[in-house]
């Protein structure tokens, strides 16, 4: 029994208060005491801990799954919609009636004008405009087009078509045309055409067959015979039924706009910049510029409504998670009153008790969100494996981006700490004398 050494002599020896030192040691100790006690408390309340971790995991899984599903769905919808159209379409300004004289100030003007017909008109100076547009940092690709209406004829069959003259390589960069070829090879030399899949079946033609395109009426009537090199599926049946792509030059002569272009298509690096960029272009060059958001206004508002509902669901689920963690910790504080009292009597500070419970919230949040992310990945795997379209292919690709998963997990952990604030404060405020007496 040799433990009797070591106590300093002298009157009422109380070790000097290591005040300044204690503070820094806490940080060095990485909350060693709080961590140990918090983990042990969690392990002790096995069932409670397990239940709430499962609860957090379920919440995180729902949030992650919904986020992935909706972003996949939106990406898919956008891909489908923008798959066959440019992000911004530039054309000549509409024909408008210009008054002969500006009205004198103060004069009342009474006019009745007939709107003018909008005939096919070329975009002035389009060759000069192209390199300027291409040089803009937001722009990924630029493609000129001559479009007009016409008829496709093959024997007795005749269908009205939307004729588009394009430069194949440029146009490919706008809508990725080559990936949409379902038969034949994308090629557009003089006298060749690429047509929609449905149009081919309507006319009863195949790759390699010829058909006649005719445009205009009366004196302006024009027609040309083309060989079909490829069939494309643009993702929309109506487009497939009407689209005929021919070389730029062929279209220019068919529509009667030699050397002209009726529109320039732009693809952007960031599609969401289209509606800010379009008005700038229109103003700068006095042209008409339409963004995909303008042409698809109802789609955009539908997507927004979807995003808002997703956010709402996420917020509600997170609130439920916070309440769940908080309620378990509130109960735990009540159950552990006496132990908290002993810790306080042994010299634990209020801050230490506070941190013990905040840490429990953080641990529950972190472990729960890790499990939740795994669960979400499983759900997504099940969805992509078992939910298939009529063609047996997955409806659309959904993936959980790692940064999204990380963000959700970080948010859930923060929610855990947040949930622990109230119980932790009540634990820290416990009067040790009373707590021990219980």
């Amino acid at each position: 029994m040799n433990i009797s050494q070591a106590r300093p002599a002298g009157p009422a020896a109380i070790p000097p208060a290591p005040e300044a030192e204690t503070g820094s040691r806490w940080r060095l100790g990485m909350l060693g005491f709080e961590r140990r006690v918090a983990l042990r408390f969690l392990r002790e309340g096995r069932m409670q801990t397990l239940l709430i971790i499962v609860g957090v995991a379920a919440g995180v899984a729902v949030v992650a799954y919904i986020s992935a599903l909706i972003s996949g769905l939106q990406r898919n919808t956008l891909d489908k919609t923008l798959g066959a159209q440019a992000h911004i379409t530039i054309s000549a300004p509409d024909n408008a009636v210009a008054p002969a004289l500006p009205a004198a100030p103060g004069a009342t003007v009474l006019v009745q004008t007939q709107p003018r017909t909008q005939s096919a008109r070329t975009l002035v100076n389009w060759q000069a405009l192209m390199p300027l547009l291409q040089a803009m940092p937001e722009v990924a690709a630029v493609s000129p087009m001559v479009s007009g209406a016409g008829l496709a004829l093959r024997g007795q069959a005749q269908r009205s078509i939307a004729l588009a003259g394009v430069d194949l390589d440029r146009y490919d960069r706008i809508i990725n045309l080559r990936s949409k070829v379902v038969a034949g090879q994308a090629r557009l030399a003089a006298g060749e055409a690429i047509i929609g899949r449905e149009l081919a079946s309507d006319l009863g033609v195949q790759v390699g067959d010829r058909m006649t395109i005719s445009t205009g009426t009366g004196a302006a009537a024009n027609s040309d015979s083309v060989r079909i090199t490829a069939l494309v599926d643009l993702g929309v049946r109506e487009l497939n039924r009407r689209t005929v792509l021919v070389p730029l030059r062929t279209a220019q002569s068919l529509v009667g706009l030699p050397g002209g272009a009726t529109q320039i298509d732009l693809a952007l690096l960031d599609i969401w910049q289209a509606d800010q960029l379009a008005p700038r272009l229109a103003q700068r060059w006095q042209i008409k510029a339409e963004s995909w958001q303008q042409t698809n206004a109802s789609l955009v508002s539908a997507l927004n409504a979807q995003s808002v509902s997703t956010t709402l669901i996420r917020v509600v689920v997170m609130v439920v998670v916070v309440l769940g963690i908080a309620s378990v910790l509130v109960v735990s504080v009540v159950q552990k009153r006496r132990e908290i009292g002993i810790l306080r009597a042994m010299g634990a500070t209020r801050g230490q008790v506070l941190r013990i419970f905040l840490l429990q919230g953080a641990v529950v949040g972190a472990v729960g969100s890790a499990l939740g992310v795994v669960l979400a990945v499983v759900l997504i795997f099940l969805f992509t494996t078992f939910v298939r379209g009529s063609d047996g292919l997955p409806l659309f690709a959904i993936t959980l981006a790692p940064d999204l998963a990380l963000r959700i997990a970080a948010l859930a952990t923060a929610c855990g700490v947040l949930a622990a604030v109230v119980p932790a404060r009540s634990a820290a405020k416990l009067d040790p004398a009373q707590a021990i007496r219980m």
Partner: protein
Amino acid sequence: MAEDSTPPAAADPAAAAAVPLLQLRGIHKSYNLGLPNEAEVLHGIDLDLAEAEFVALIGPSGSGKSTLLNIIGLLESPSAGSYRIGGQEAVGLDDAATTRLRGQALGFVFQFHHLLPAFSALENVTLPALMREGHVSETQLARAEEVLAAMGLQQAMNKRPGELSGGMQQRVAIARALVLRPPLVLADEPTGNLDTSTSEEVFALMRRMHAELRTSFLIVTHDPRLAQQCDRIVELVDGRIVGDRPL
């Protein structure tokens, strides 16, 4: 009347006379202050305690023993009066300073052991060091094992409190109170929950630790036989000290 009784049992009278370990002057404690049911439970307690004393605090239930012990243990603050530990005034300190002083100067042994059930005996004993340092150093671990061994608990170090008998749990609690070598250990009915022979055993252990470590003990007890084995008996009745005698 407490002032004139110089602590008689101090092993080293010279040191004790210099600065008493504890000095309570005019301690009052009221509950529900300002309310209709206001009640004063301590009416002006004067008490000195020297180093290395072994004191019993006795009195009928409701006499204010536990309240006095809580005040001495810095778990409650008095309504009026002065309380010095080692010359330092302890009344009016903020919570952080009170907690710090409590951790440095005092060890606690409670009637119902109050070990943390989720921690092994050894972990319970190293908790005060962990709390203070954020980790348990080799030295602290060795010291904890040494104290537990001194309590005859070599075989029980890694057992949870639930696996130990009442007497063993109380010995772990005493080891925990002593491990940081505080100058004073406060014990509230430390044997109140134990049978007679275990009580004797636990009490004998406290006496031995007192002899070896020169730690002061202040023991609240109902048991007159145990009180008779202390060096000094302070008797409290209705919130007043009515007897303070050496044995």
